[in-house]
Every structure is written in structure tokens, then in C-alpha cells.
């Protein structure tokens, strides 16, 4: 009994026509703010470098990102109605520093210290100025050098600080993933939900690698590469990969750190290192003195904690 198909590719979850209703899940604090001021806006997404939807809570105190659970072949019954679009939007608080970071990196080219409100401005995404009230001024020190105080604060991107800050995030995410028993094992086994996976204990390195990939969804791909290197995160073992290319070729590549997004690693075609022109950020980064950067062993040493204390 084949169903009647609407003309062409109509339907199939991709229906963009005439959507006028959305099912969203928001923090209670957002749901309870009755007196207006809650707004969805489009901001520059630090990873995609394209616009994405974010939500500002009342008085711009908090910025939240919007991700949608969108499985194929899903629709909603809502009370006494049907909604073709079966997606579930989840609105969760996002660290505003992630969204400020691209502007800082961009301004770093000039080498100048600049007031934050001058740094974060964007013709394409004018609403980005709202981010300023979401950022706790002292938090800017996680990602930049700050001069002055109070209203006359000026800052300049600091890669070393940023990488340390991101490293802590990665550690924190790794802890969380491991506490929540999120399966981080190789992508090739993705489709086999067998019990044998239980015995396959993920190592701390597995969690860190996975967490680094996850955090990398909030930073530019260039910075992600730096972070991977900074943390000494190794490539996933290639034997798990369903190869479409001869394995020998893959093996050679394995000692070159790859971008985090390749961790999903099913037959990646474009995973060769590219010798393209350096981006502005890369140029900026290459100027940075990297002697102070740590390797993986320091990451496990107690020094890190001591350093945090000093901050």
C-alpha cells in the first residue's frame, strides 16, 4: 500500500513551506518571564561563520543557543492538532565568550587594545551588541589581555589564555560525558548497539578527544586545530575507520593532527592537510610566541590546578 506522495520532494521533513508553529524547550527562567523582552536573534556562529538563531533573555542577561532535534519521519500531535514539522527545539544557555571570540580574533590583526563595545559590532548581525550585557567583564580575561578598569576597559585577544580556557572546558566536558556514560567510542561501531560495547571501556583520552570535538563546535576550525595541538590530543585510531582509500595512505596521515570534526571518521575524503593560504587568524596566531604553551604531560600534572588558584 504505497502512500500517495505529494509532488516531488515535498514533505520529507524538509518542508519549509508555511511553518508557523514551533515546539521549543526553554529554561524555566525564560518561560516565566512574562513581561516581554525575550527575543530570538540571528548572530554569527563562531564555527560555521554563518548566521544562527540565538535567544536573548529579558534585559539581555543571558544568551541561549537553539538546537533542534530533527529526526526524519516525525510529526507532532499537539492537543487537538497535527503539526507536520516534528522537530523539538532546545534552547540552552551558551557561554557568550564563544560568540565574542570571533570578533576579538578578527581585531587582533591590528594589534591594538580596543574597548569591548567597539570590538563587538557587526553590520551583518547588528544584534551582537546585546552580547555585551551578557558577558561578565572580568570573564574577558579568559580570552584576552585587559587594560584599564571599569568603563575604560580595553582588551586584546590572547591565544594562550584562550587555549587554557578552552582546555578547561574540554576537561569539564570530558568529566561530564564520562559521568553521564555518553558513548564516545569509535564511529565505525556507531550502528551496532551490542552489549559488547559495554566492555569496551573508553579511556580518559577517548573522552578528551570527544569533548575536544564537541567544544570545537563552538570555535573556529582554526582555533580547534590549535586546541587539539595544545592539548596533545591524538588522532583516533585509523583501524576503526571504514576505509575507502588504501590503508597505507591513511597511516601516513595519522601523525598529522586533524581537525576535530573528523572524529566522526566515516570515509572522509577531504582530510588531507590543505596548504591553502593562511587565514587572518592563522597569521595572527603564527605571530604569537608559543614557547609558553604546554604539552600533554603538563596537562595531567597538578600544576594546572595551582595555576588556576593564582588567577
Amino acid at each position, binding site marked *: *500500500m*504505497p*502512500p*500517495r*506522495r*505529494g509532488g516531488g520532494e515535498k*514533505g*520529507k521533513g524538509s518542508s*519549509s513551506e*508555511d*511553518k*508557523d508553529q*514551533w515546539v521549543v524547550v526553554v529554561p524555566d527562567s525564560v518561560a516565566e518571564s512574562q513581561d516581554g523582552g525575550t527575543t*530570538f536573534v*540571528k548572530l554569527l*556562529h563562531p*564555527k*560555521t*561563520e*554563518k*548566521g*544562527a*538563531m540565538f535567544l536573548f533573555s529579558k534585559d539581555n542577561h543571558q544568551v541561549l*543557543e*537553539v*538546537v*533542534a*532535534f*530533527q*529526526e*526524519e*519521519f516525525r510529526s507532532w500531535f499537539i492537543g487537538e492538532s*497535527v503539526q507536520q*514539522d516534528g522537530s523539538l*527545539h*532546545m534552547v540552552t544557555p551558551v557561554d557568550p565568550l564563544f560568540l565574542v571570540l570571533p570578533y576579538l580574533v578578527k581585531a587582533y590583526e591590528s594589534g591594538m587594545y580596543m574597548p569591548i563595545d567597539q570590538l563587538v559590532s557587526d553590520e551583518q548581525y547588528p544584534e551582537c551588541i546585546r552580547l555585551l550585557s551578557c558577558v561578565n567583564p572580568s570573564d574577558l580575561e579568559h580570552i584576552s589581555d585587559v587594560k584599564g578598569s571599569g568603563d575604560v576597559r580595553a582588551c586584546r585577544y590572547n591565544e594562550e589564555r584562550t587555549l587554557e580556557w578552552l582546555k578547561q572546558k574540554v576537561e569539564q566536558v570530558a568529566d561530564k560525558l564520562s559521568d553521564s556514560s*555518553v558513548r564516545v567510542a569509535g*564511529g565505525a561501531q*556507531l*550502528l551496532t548497539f551490542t552489549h559488547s560495547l559495554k566492555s569496551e571501556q573508553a579511556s580518559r583520552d577517548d573522552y578528551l578527544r*570527544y569533548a575536544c*570535538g*564537541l567544544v*570545537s*563546535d563552538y570555535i573556529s*576550525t582554526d582555533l580547534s586545530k590549535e586546541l587539539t595541538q595544545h592539548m596533545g590530543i591524538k588522532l583516533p585510531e585509523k583501524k576503526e575507520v571504514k576505509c575507502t582509500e588504501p590503508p597505507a595512505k591513511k597511516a601516513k596521515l595519522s601523525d598529522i593532527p586533524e*581537525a*576535530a*570534526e*573528523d*572524529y*566522526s571518521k*566515516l*570515509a*572522509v*575524503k*577531504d582530510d588531507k592537510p590543505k596548504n591553502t593560504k593562511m587565514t587572518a587568524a592563522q597569521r595572527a596566531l603564527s605571530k604569537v610566541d608559543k614557547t609558553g604553551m604546554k604539552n600533554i604531560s603538563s596537562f595531567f600534572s597538578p600544576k594546572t590546578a595551582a595555576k588556576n588558584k593564582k588567577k
Partner: protein
Amino acid sequence: MNLRDFEEDNAKSCVIGSDVPGVTKGEPCCLGIDEAGRGPVLGPMVYGICYCPLSGQDRLKDMGFADSKTLSEEQREKLFEAIAGAGEFMGWTIHILAPNAISNCMLRRSKYNLNTLSHDTAIGLIQRTLDSGVNLQEVYVDTVGDASKYQDKLKGIFPDLDITVTPKADSKFPIVSAASICAKVSRDRAVKGWGFFEETESNKISRQFGSGYPSDPETKKWLASMVEPVFGFTQFVRFSWSTAGKILDDKAVTVNWDDEDEDEKAATPSVLSFFAAKGEDPKQKKHQYFQERFLHSVTDFGS
């Protein structure tokens, strides 16, 4: 016969039976199996069995059993009363397959056809009778599909029984005829007394559905008139019948399931399709964590 158990929830199949006569536990017995309501697009399909001592077969003939289809409704009701009144030497059991259960089975991802469903039901009823202590020896079955294959299947499962599978068994063996009457009478009663849970005070469902056979114009008319655009039909209708499906294709909203149409798709779950969508800009690709959970960044709100 009391159909209350089935009427309480007519979305689910149900087994109802008489007490087991003491004599059938001692004397060697014969058992007949027949079904009613296989063809219709509406209502339940009922499997009936009747059993009695081999020595009681002459008494059955005297009671006047014949093919239930050649009898009038009143005659069948009378004969059923006779069966119920002969409880000291005859037992019966019916298995009502709810139309919803039939649809569910036939529309399953791993297809389960009506013949297999029929066979399984018959096997279940024989087993149930054996389990209740009846001294079964001979079994007579009206065939579903190829008679000899069906017979081999049953013999494989019940090697100790003398099993005869044949077309028109209900006109050849009085015990099958009795079983056929049990099945037909209960199917008729179930259809007549059908409680439509979809019905409300303000939204009555017409009972003018004719014979229920797909070829009956009245049935077709009724089906077409009762279509609800989203849900299709009441659960009284067997959705898995092509007649019902065609009407929905024409009159109801299209519903897409992930096991339909694209056969090659069935082999590869949609998780893979995310990985297959490669060659795209790595900047636009979400991490494995999100991909496995079908979580996407929202870049816009429709429009």
C-alpha cells in the same frame, strides 16, 4: 456465548471458550477448526474450534450441522444454542482477531501475512485444547492456502495427532461445521455490537457498512464517507486491506513512514545518511555527538 471480554477492548484480540466437558478428557476426541470473516475489510476475523468424543459424531449429524455459509442467520443462531446446550459432551473455543490487530500484524516492518496469522491462530487453539486436558486424537481443518503444506506444518507441530486439512472441510465433517458456526455467529455478533470508540455524541458513525466485503458497493461507499483526513478510519476497518489503502490515498492526508518506498533505505538507518552527506564544508558539519542525536543548529525559523 458472551463476547463481553472482547467488547471491553475491541482493539485487542481475545480468546473465549466453553467449559471443558469431563467426557472429553477421558474418551478420545475429534476437533474441527474453521474461520469466519477472512475476506471482509471490516471487523474481526474469528477462529472457532469445536470438539467432542469420537463416539459422539453421530449425535452431531443428527443435530443438523452443515456449512455455515449455506445456513441462514437464524439457523446458525439456533445451532449455536444447540452447541451451547450440549455442553456435557461438546466444547468450543473462539479466537477473535481484532481488525486493529490484523492491521498491526500485516503492516509490521517485518511483514506478517494473513496466512501465517491464520496458521498461528489455529496452532494456538489446538495447543490450548491439549493444555486444557482434552484427549485429542483427530483434527479436521478447513484449509488456508495450500492444503498439503498446511497439513505438513500442523503434523510437524503435533506429530501425535491425526490431522486432516482439506478445502470445504465444514461441509464434509460435522465437527468442522460446528466450529464454523461458532466462528460465524461470534463474528456476526461482534460486528453487530461493534462499539466505535471514535464515536462521540455529536459525531455518530453510520452503521450502513453493508456486508463488509470489499466488492460490496455499500461497504465501499461507507468507507469513503467515513474517512477522517488525518487518522483515516475507525479501528473497525482493516487498514491493511488494499481497498482501505486506496481510499486513504485518495481522500486522506499523506503519511510517510521510514520503511516505505525506498527499499534501499530500509537497509541503512538514517544515521548513516548523515555521514553520507559528506564532502560538505567541515565548518557546517556538527560533531558526532549532535549527529547521533539528530541535533541541528537552527539557522532560521521557517517563513
